[in-house]
């Protein structure tokens, strides 16, 4: 076992997949010689050559158009979009092409691409380096979306994403690259090296997509979270007396609905938390499903704790960020409800 932070775990997943399969390539803006602005591809060009890990022009739609073509040929490209805020220029290639190709050709063609991109705020990135666009993609049939919350999962899930024959979006919460950020920006960050989930096998292992993980079992209320918010939820719950069950969704499409439903049927209460803007965020879908499947078990309205419906404001990111305080208030409300 090695100690890895999330970047190292991602790098290790790429390294292993590139060494196992010559058809795995990785590319993106500043990804080659430099190794990526977050260093996720550091050393890979040196190790595998510039044809397997290379820089691309600054054209997100070109990057994904090229990746799809490579996937059609038979390669397994892993593209990096430097920040998820810059995935929008590539929206058409993702939605109209990657997501539809297998369907429209009735299985004759498909594009097994993986798109890695850092999401989320809390790093003083301002409104164009902080967004969490997963909700938008969850509405697009044909795309899978994965959001890991720790190095161990990141590696195992990324390996599964690369091996997956469908297009997979792999969103990396950049705030937890270095440690499990709990939402207190004024406290020192525990590095992953001091956290059990920073223990990552150096070898190959895969974590199947579509399996949520109960990170804290509990009986009183179910908290549905993914990415950074898993740690916020753990911190918030630890600061209360509430016996909450925290579920880390890990992938939102496919969604592990059975684990969610079983939990809420047990607890009778549910709070959803995500960093993305509130309206039509993935929390809405979770609530729609939970109330449908668990209606008769629910003791209180399901609450959403989310980013506000504004861009992510640079100076006020801690007013924006849905931290432990807001989650605790929601938990309190939900517990007090009739």
């Amino acid at each position, binding site marked *: 076992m090695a100690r890895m932070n999330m970047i190292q775990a991602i790098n290790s997943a790429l390294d292993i997949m590139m060494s196992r399969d010559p058809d795995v390539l990785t590319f993106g803006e500043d990804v080659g010689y430099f190794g990526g602005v977050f260093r996720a591809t550091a050393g890979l060009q040196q190790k595998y050559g510039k044809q397997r890990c290379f820089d*691309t022009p600054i*054209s997100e739609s070109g990057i994904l*158009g090229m990746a799809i*073509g*490579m996937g059609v040929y038979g390669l397994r490209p892993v593209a990096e979009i430097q920040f998820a805020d810059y995935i929008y220029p590539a929206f058409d290639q993702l939605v109209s092409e990657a997501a539809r190709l297998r369907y*429209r050709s009735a299985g*004759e063609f498909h594009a097994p691409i993986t798109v890695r991109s850092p999401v989320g705020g809390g790093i003083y990135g301002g409104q164009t380096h902080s967004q969490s666009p997963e909700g938008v993609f969850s509405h697009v049939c044909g795309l899978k979306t994965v959001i890991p919350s720790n190095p161990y999962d990141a590696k195992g899930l990324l390996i599964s994403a690369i091996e997956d024959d469908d297009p997979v979006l792999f969103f990396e919460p950049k705030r937890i690259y270095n440690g499990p950020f709990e939402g207190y920006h004024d406290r020192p960050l525990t590095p992953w090296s001091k956290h059990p989930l920073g223990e990552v096998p150096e070898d190959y292992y895969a974590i199947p997509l579509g399996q949520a993980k109960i990170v804290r079992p509990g009986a009183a209320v179910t908290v549905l979270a993914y990415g950074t918010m898993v740690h916020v939820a753990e911190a918030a719950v630890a600061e209360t007396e509430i016996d909450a069950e925290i579920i880390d969704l890990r992938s939102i499409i496919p969604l592990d609905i059975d684990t969610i439903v079983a939990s809420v049927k047990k607890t009778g209460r549910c709070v959803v938390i995500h960093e993305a803007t509130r309206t039509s965020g993935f929390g809405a879908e979770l609530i729609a499903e939970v109330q449908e499947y668990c209606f008769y078990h629910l003791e209180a309205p399901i609450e959403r704790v989310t980013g506000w419906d504004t861009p992510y404001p640079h100076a006020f990111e801690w007013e924006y960020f849905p931290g432990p305080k807001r989650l605790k208030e929601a938990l309190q409300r939900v517990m007090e409800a009739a």
Partner: protein
Amino acid sequence: MTDKTKLKLHIPEPPARPGEEPDFSEFIIVDAGSVPRPAVDTPDDQLRDYPFTLIRVLDDAQRAVGEWDPQLDPETLRRGLRHMMLTRAFDARMLKTQRQGKTSFYMQCTGEEACGVAQAYALDDDDMLFTSYRQQSMLVAREWPLVDLMCQIFNNPKDRTKGRQLPVLYSVADANFFSISGNLCTQYPQAVGWAMASAYKGDSRIAAAWIGEGTTAESDFHNALTFASVYQAPVVLNITNNQYAISSFQAIAGGEQSTFAARAIGYGIPGLRVDGNDFLAVYAVTRWAAERARRNLGPTLIELYTYRVAAHSTSDDPSAYRSAAEATSWPLGDPIERLKQHLMGCGEWDEQRHAALQEELDAQVLADLKEAESHGTLGTAPCSPASMFDDVFKELPIHLRRQRQQAGY
């Protein structure tokens, strides 16, 4: 402070609208045979005039002249004529079936048959084609069964796209013919990616892609050219300039200020402009570009100058926006007629054989149609909706399984 003129907004206008005389006076016809054929390894900076001329082989008397004459044998030319005529017969027949309500939609390529057929010949059968919806002639040239295409058009149980796609949006992996997208231009950068993958693998297959001149305005056009240039991808990028998008004439896409082939210059890519109704010229130019790609000399952009004789699609009526007489006054003629005249001039063809061939092809199309219709037409016997939930993902996820159950399958 400068002298301040009142600015004004320029909106391009076509030379003629319905009711007006067709006017092609702006179009400069370059003499056949007058453009030299450079070696395929000529650096792009020596080719910067090519986008502004027009490569032609067949002269006004339909004789093959000049360096670009590919010197194809008569057998191949007769085959080309057959495939062009078959395409046209197929189009005519499918238009009829649409009018009869047997399908919802159809798109002809009338006037553009030389582009597809000659280009298919100039490429190898294992080269990958990323076409738009108007290259059915390439499938004809690759001798893909018309019955199969018809079944797609009818969305019947033999439809390879399982009833999911709009008619004519074929997907024929077995013919190295990529699934056609309803979204314009998306396949252009994909073809570049495919070509890069082929190069990465040390393969020898190249890619080729097609869009219309209207589609050059899409973002993906620029993406494709940028990536093709940076990575010197072995790809042939084609623009079929049939002078119209739907109702918009080519100036709305930028054809007033420059040529579409000229877009290549800025990327350091050779841009060739060819008479798209000249089978021999289209073949020669495509062959040149393909050879360049195969020899690791990089991509080429080809503008095929032609004219869209028919409506944009069965949903369109061109009499609303263009002069009805335009098609017949287009100075570069009809590609089938021109190849026919050429072959006759060479003593390799005659009116009798031509009439016989026409009859044979019409009969073939009719027979194929019978067979295709026997499997059903749109609405009468569609393939089963049970498969409707398949292929969204490789495996059916739980939420789709539940939706399928809800839908009763």
